């Protein structure tokens, strides 16, 4: 074979390839054509294998020419592929509907109580509080006695109690965790205790089970300013940065001084009016009650053998459903425990 023969056969390959490509209509057939011409055993490879038959001086030129041919074929192939794909899109458009629903799976949800609980826990753990938990069926001692609520004390009327037996109750608040924590840990400490609590009470605004979060911080020289700061931080984290906080004196047997905390109404922004209508949430006062708190009563410290002269601290307890109602504008407490999916599904995005 001479160099000319070789070049002629290359041209023939290019011509045949171009012709075959011309006739080709489906993108799927491209691969077969590629293999036939450019594959390991394709016609170009076969021709290349005869390269050693050429006179030595003609080989470099022939080799170069063969590579050019290969490039030409690849370019043609790729151009054809683009053309087929472009044409294909036009042809497929009638069958492809981009708007059909996707293969979408179920969307789950967390309960609003969980959402709020998590958010509150996160706010407090972010500034260094630990989370503790304890039993829901509780001894009279932890639920009442150790919290400075002796038997036959009128403060027991503040919480209608569900009893298991004479000395065992369903905890009426998360405050027993104050005692349980201080019993097992020396000061200083800072904990929050979320959980279910129970009262013997059921009407429009009370359910026999609800959720609370208790907070307790004990250290040297803790003051009401610390309490106020902590709760202001909490309220502004959960609601808005502009929320105002009001402390009112109150009474809890295990804190002294005790206070109730009101926040500026999140519905009417503390104005008392929603447009021209009186605000129903704050009853036009501009304030809504959100939690109870106070400085730990020295009598409680004595129960757990903390020296009340050295250690001071604050405690607070708040109702989770109450916060959730304000946050999500839920107007009926009972919705929380009916578990109607039309309610639960509204929290999918949270």
């Amino acid at each position: 074979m001479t160099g000319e023969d070789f070049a002629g056969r290359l041209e023939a390959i290019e011509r045949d390839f171009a012709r075959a490509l011309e006739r080709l209509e489906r993108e799927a057939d491209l691969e077969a054509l590629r293999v036939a011409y450019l594959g390991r055993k394709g016609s170009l490879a076969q021709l290349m294998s005869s390269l050693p038959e050429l006179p030595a001086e003609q080989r470099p030129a022939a080799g170069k020419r063969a590579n050019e041919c290969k490039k030409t074929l690849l370019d043609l192939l790729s151009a054809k592929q683009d053309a087929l794909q472009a044409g294909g899109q036009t042809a497929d458009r009638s069958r492809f509907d981009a708007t059909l629903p996707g293969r979408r799976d179920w969307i789950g949800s967390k309960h609003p109580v969980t959402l709020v609980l998590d958010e509150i826990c996160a706010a407090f753990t972010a500034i260094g509080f630990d989370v503790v938990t304890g039993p829901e069926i509780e001894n009279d001692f932890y639920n009442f006695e150790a919290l400075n609520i002796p038997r036959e004390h009128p403060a027991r009327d503040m919480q209608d109690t569900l009893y298991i037996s004479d000395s065992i109750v369903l905890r009426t608040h998360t405050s027993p965790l104050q005692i349980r924590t201080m019993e097992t840990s020396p000061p200083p400490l800072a904990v929050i205790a979320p959980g279910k609590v129970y009262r013997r009470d059921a009407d429009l605004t009370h359910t026999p089970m609800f959720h609370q979060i208790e907070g307790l911080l004990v250290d040297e020289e803790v003051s009401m300013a610390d309490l106020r700061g902590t709760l202001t931080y909490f309220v502004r984290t959960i609601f808005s940065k502009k929320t105002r906080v009001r402390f009112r004196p109150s009474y809890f047997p295990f804190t002294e001084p005790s206070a109730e905390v009101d926040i500026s109404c999140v519905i009417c922004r503390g104005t008392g009016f929603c447009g021209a209508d009186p605000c129903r949430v704050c009853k036009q006062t501009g304030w809504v009650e959100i939690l109870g708190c106070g400085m730990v009563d020295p009598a409680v410290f004595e129960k757990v053998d903390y020296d009340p002269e050295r250690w001071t601290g604050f405690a607070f307890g708040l109702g989770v459903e109450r916060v959730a109602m304000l946050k999500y504008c839920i107007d009926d407490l009972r919705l929380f425990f009916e578990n109607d999916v039309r309610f639960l599904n509204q929290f999918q995005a949270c």
Partner: protein
Amino acid sequence: MFLSINWLKEFTPYTGSLDELAHQLTMLGLEVEEVLNPFAHLEPFLVGHVLDCSPHQNADSLSCCQVDIGGETPVAVVCGAPNVAAGQKVAVAPVGSSLPGGMKIKKAKIRGALSQGMICSEKELELSEDHSGIMVLDPKCTPGTGLLQALNLDTVVLDIGITPNRADCLSILGLAREVAAAFDLPLHLPEFQLQEEGEACSSLIRIQIDAPELCPLYQARIIQGLSIRPSPAWMRYRLLSMGLRPINNVVDVSNYVMLELGQPLHAFDRSLLEGGVIRVGCAADGQKFTTLDNQERVLGSGDLLIQDGVKPVALAGVMGGANSEINAHSTDLLLESAVFDPGNTRRTGRSLGLSSESAYRFERGVDQPGSTFALDRAAGLIQSLAGGRICTGRAVSEPRPWTPRVVDFRPKRAQSLLALSTDAAASQKVLENIGCGVRPLHDKTLRVTPPSYRLDLEREVDLIEEIGRFHGFERIEAALPRIRKSPLDADAQVLGASLASHEFLNRTKTWAQGQGYAEAVNYSFCSRQELESLGLADEGIIPVHNPLSAEQDSMRPALAPGLLRNVRTNLDQGNQNLRFFEIARVFQHDPRSETTAREANRLGLLCHGRRNPSFWPWTDEAVSYLDLKGAIEHFFLSLGLEPARFSPGDAPQYCRSRIRMTLRGEDIGFLGRVQPGIAKDLYHARTPVWISEIDLDVLYRLSRGQSVVYRPWVKFPPVQRDITLICPPEVSYSQIQDVIAASNIPAQESISLQDVYQPDQSFECNLTLRITYRHHKKTLTDKEVDKQHFELGKKLLKALPVRFPA
């Protein structure tokens, strides 16, 4: 506690606005819950002047009146009262108004005569029970003025929430003290006349206290020759404004003085008392006594009784007896003013299910020295309303006289606890303002003697609260505390462990949400009956001693009852295709536990209805075992655990397919399909309901402490070979897995199930497995793989009754 503004002003000359007063009281811890007008229903009524009154032409019992109600011309009113007469000032309900009972006053013809309003009786106005005739007003009233103003009624009453520590504020006097202190106003005690005459009270009655620990003071006065009548209008109206029903002049005075001064009083008809003695002592166990509400009560030995020489006459501090009650014919009375033990009074009231205004105050504590003033005040008032003679002096027994408390107060301590810069002088002024005696001990301490009515001021910290209250909590600046943790000792780890398990529960919730389950929160109670119908009522159930209802009489031992009820609630509402999860505690009796209960965290999963959220592009299939099982396996794998072992076992009776799950030899829960009958009849579900409960405490224990350690992977290529086995029904997939796992074929890396095919009308099932082979040190040749694969096939045939397809 109600606070009538008019009454308050009799004690202290408050002249500011109502809003300011309400705000100040609230900020003192006396929360104003509502501002009421107890006589709002009388707002539309007017004073009328009967100008002319003539008999009705067509009815003997009716009169036709011309009444001036302030308009240009008088109105015609037909009146049926026997006492109506020209010249009277009367209460008129004009056309357009409504009577408290709801009757609307319209212009009407009554037997032919025009009537443009109604002249009212006291009963019609709900001012008393008197319906004998119309109410005749003071002749000085001006026609056309509102009845409310004309009667000078207390139209502004604050409803104040009193916390249990503030017994002193259960009276107008106590609230007035707070107002006077807050606004720096003087305080006036009520003035009264007390004319004693004749025999000494103590010579007529002897007081004997047998239980001094329950009754530190008992004293009484005797009034003779009085006459029981309705109280005058001012007294009746005032009691009405405070929400009390007027009875007669004696009972009304005792109620009035209780509201005014906070001291409960009781009046006995002295003619019904025998033996010239009042004894205060405990009842005999099982003793019966009829209280003045005519209920027979069975008493216990702790209940304190007031007895005369022969019989019990009152349940001390709680309620008087029917046998000695004041009645319309009483002329002599014995008026009691005593102090009873708070705890014991409360216990008696609670054990008998009996509450009263009196018991409410004794339970919280009354002012022992103040009880004498209250007794004298009441005696004077009774005399002025009912006449009679007050015997000289009081009969008294005071086995435990009041001793004032002394509390040392360090202004510095108040400053640091409240973060308020109040100096000793300012503190002293606050304490004196609230009635404390204050004497500086030295420069750092004040010696404080709280007044006898402030039983809540026992300790320094109680005084600190007073400083805070009167300076205003609002003046305390906010600051974030530094948070120090206790040293990292064993105790501190307890807190950390709690946080980790809390986070584990949260992580589980996030996983379940991601799997498309909606979180349910159910009550921790369920009904015993429901547990029985589910076969869950074994002996470990914890009953609630005083449940609100039978639906809530037991602590739940499982999450299933709540989740199944959620299915019913939703199906009844037309919500279908349900997927719920719940994470909560379940309860089991455990005598070894300090709370007699064992509480375990559970995950409940339930699905019902379609497998997928939509038809297209999914297929329409119901959820099945493999869906819920798959979710659970996904959960375990996501925790870094191996999938559990699922085997038929002893799951709850209410399930048909009962599958138990074990992980590393520990039981961690079950999975099953609710019996179709139970699902349909009790929970209205006609298609399969799949449910699972998993013990999260065990799972947490198994999953924790696992740390991820990176391992390099084998770089040689894998080779895969399929194998199809024809399996009889008794062969399970897990047996095949076990045989392969135990086969010790060196390069066998993993297996995956490719296909399960059950030919029609065959009990056998074809399982196709894909086995992956890979050597960690070299590329396997086809020959080597074939040999191992053949070896594996032989082992399977030997170990199990399976065969290869022909």
